[in-house]
């Protein structure tokens, strides 16, 4: 999956992955895609909830060996 920026939030616990994600999204343009990796199992539900509430789009979620990779498309302005 293509992305415009990549963030590493591995080994960080709630709420840091979400805070990093928010910061990362502020550094890309509207409709660009952010890739963010996390190991916090709670982040799956949290990222879904984050996207639902903010209007950003969770394009894809990959899970492999406890690593969660999210692809989030920034909402249009």
């Amino acid at each position, binding site marked *: 999956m293509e992305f415009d920026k990549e963030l590493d939030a591995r080994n960080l616990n*709630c709420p*840091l992955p979400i*805070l990093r994600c*928010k910061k990362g999204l502020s550094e890309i343009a509207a409709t660009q895609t952010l890739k963010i990796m996390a190991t916090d199992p709670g982040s799956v539900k949290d990222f879904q909830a984050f996207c639902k509430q*903010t209007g950003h789009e969770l394009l894809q979620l990959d899970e492999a060996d406890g690593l969660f990779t999210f692809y989030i498309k920034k909402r249009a302005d």
Partner: protein
Amino acid sequence: MPKKLALIASKGTLDWAYPPFILASTAAALDYEVQIFFTFYGLTLLKKDLSDLKVSPLGNPAMPMPVPMPNFVQMLPGMESMATMMMKQKIASKGIASIEDLRTACLESGVKMIACQMTVDLFDFKTTDFIDGIEFGGAATFFEFAGESDVNLFI
């Protein structure tokens, strides 16, 4: 029109410092407008130096301990410092943010922090003890924002 979150932070221990800052920083990430009113012991969370925040096992039967520990042992000198040290080690090893980091995240994302003026007077705090960028006010100041908030929590 953004949603609004109003918090009252009334506790000044290391463990209870987490909920207001976690909720406030997360709400700000969710585009909420956030205000925290710090009152009584919560006011200590606005001090420049947060290194003396402590956690107490005393009278807290739910706190997980490495070995079972009766109350009379927990009240011995040094127990509070030991519990605090162990808690800080746990926090760091689990990738949990420090209180300083969460507070900074709150400030950077525009969370407004209000120190209870009455408590400042009551405990003879000096305004120079506190971080920059906060306001001082009373109950009416809190309600000005809380009255039009979507979520109000007392912590």
